[in-house]
């Protein structure tokens, strides 16, 4: 897909999204106009903003049609195949980082993510890999949980229990 096509599709998608928002507000329970004795309805602000978004998208489409924007004259690929692969791998890794957090907890999930990225993609030595994959979660645990009492997701009971053992160990040292 060329940059030119991408700009057209993006502007069309944004126009449709804006119209969808307007319809959602207008046909929903929200009042767009003035409510006697209470002032502007709660739908006023999002409705007019969405209308503005739609008009801005139409303006972009017009500029695309008349070839004013540099993107509308650019026939190079929007994303080259190499970038698609690299960005795709990164986004997929992030997707699994978040997905696995629900099951094995954020700490174990981030260990797997860092291991994949540092060893799998970066091809660093085992010393660096272990240092980063263990150092980062330990640092985050000490700062967020030990110092600031901000608890991160711990996953299913089995994985939660492992972190609880670590908590007990920490308490036995601290108190």
């Amino acid at each position, binding site marked *: 897909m060329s940059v030119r096509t991408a700009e057209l599709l993006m502007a069309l998608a944004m126009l449709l999204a804006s119209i969808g928002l307007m319809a959602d507000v207008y046909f929903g329970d929200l009042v767009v106009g003035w409510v006697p004795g209470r002032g502007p309805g709660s739908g006023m602000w999002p409705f007019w903003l969405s209308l503005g978004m739609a008009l801005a*998208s139409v303006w972009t489409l017009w500029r695309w049609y008349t070839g004013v924007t540099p993107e509308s004259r650019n026939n190079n690929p929007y994303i080259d195949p190499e970038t698609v692969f690299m960005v795709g791998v990164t986004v997929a890794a992030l997707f699994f980082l978040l997905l696995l957090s629900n099951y094995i907890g954020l700490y174990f999930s981030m260990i797997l993510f860092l291991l994949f990225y540092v060893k799998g993609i970066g091809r660093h030595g085992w010393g660096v890999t272990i240092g980063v994959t263990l150092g980062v979660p330990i640092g985050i645990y000490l*700062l967020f949980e030990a110092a600031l009492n901000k608890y*991160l997701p711990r996953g299913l009971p089995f994985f939660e229990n492992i972190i609880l053992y670590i908590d007990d160990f920490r308490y036995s040292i601290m108190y």
Partner: protein
Amino acid sequence: MDTILSLLGAGLLQAFEPLNFAMIFLGCLAGLFIGAMPGLGSVNGVAILLPVTFLVPPTAAIIFLAALYYGAMYGGAVSSITLGIPGSSTAVATVFDGRPMAQSGRADQALMAAAIASFIGGTISVILFTGFAPPLAAFALKFGPQEEFALMLVAFATFIGLGGDDIPKTIFSILIGLVLAAVGFDIISGNPRLIFFDMVEFQRGIEFLVLAIGIYGIGEMIWTLEHTKGAVQMHKVQITLKRVWDNFKQIKEYLPTTAMGSVVGFFVGTLPAAGATPASLMSYGLAKSFSKDGDSFGKGNVAGVAAPEAGNNAASTGSMLPMLTLGIPGSPTTAILLGGMIIWGLRPGPLLFSESPDFVWGLIGSMYVANFVTVALNIALIPVFIRVLAMPFTILAPIIFVLCVVGVFATTDRMFDTWLMLLLGCMGYLMRKLNYPVAPAVLAIVLGPLTERSLRQSLISSQGDPMTFIERPISLVCILIAVALVSYPFVQKMIRKRKEPAEAAE
């Protein structure tokens, strides 16, 4: 004046007492690191450490928390510049130019500018605070919702008129940011709005940090990945004393911007419910407006780092003014400080200056000292911060990704927001590739709730009459500035078009 100076002298002596000075040092250091950590800002730091302060006398306690507040303002810039992730909302504007500077190997220059500008902002604001506290508090109270709305229009108009980006795309970016800020329960009627796909998670709204970290953390890293193919080190910077001195000498380049940002920041900070985030964004906008080199903003202009940093530090002092003189907090952090003062048995308000002068002047004295301590700590730690940038991309990138996830979760306590961050980050990347500017969207989501509230309050108080915005002088001036800013690119284009045929004829 003599009375003020003698009270200030006594306050400074109090700040140098061993316990108070230790509190200043600890507060600045803790604030620096808390501010630098994505997802944690001065609000979190002050809230979490408030109970700790019950161990010390009230004056030492507020000195510690105020120093922490200061330190966090400085610290927010560190992650904005080195990692491209705003450590807190107050440092969002610092990313706009701080990040490009770091990417071009000028991270030390950006960090130095941030530290010095913060110092100047803090110092100017403390001087203004000392000399003009009562009249400024009274002037700030003249700012009703009409003036607040008009001020917000100026902030948005700056991006349209002087952003140098595609105008319809900039407008779209502002509007989508405002729409995202409107998601969740309506602030006035309480009705749920824009609950996409009927997902209950949207009822709580979208935190601006989700968008900011998504765009500047995830989106930025994907952008860098595309351009470097992940094969290079991020940036190499050699720190030498000569380089530090050269960076220091650059101060004259951004001194006027810094001074302007300080005054603007201080005043915006004094407005109830405004705080340091709008202050830093407005300082940035004004710096860009008045710069002869406005086009270079967003691409690594040192004044683009100095202005918001001066603005947010000045605002942090400014927001203490209505808290101490009127008992009205100017920011979320000062709201917590206010709570602390009540717990300590103090009564913030007009009588505080006469009833507890030791407390008030001890705090003001400590602000001067905290400024010196924080700038010294900041400059001393620049080599440590810079080392982060020397890491290979394949180590730094996953650490940044993890910090983004942890930062968002720590802010909202919801995994849903981390998914939203990923989605918005990817969307931001795709739109940025098509020249949609992302900074206005971040500005809009931050200022959105304040803008909508002030607009609706104005319309309610005027029974729906829009003339209310031009009948009030301050509001009228702001609206005229906004109109001039929006018209500027069109006028410029017309002038250029008229010149072209004339030049061709010659």
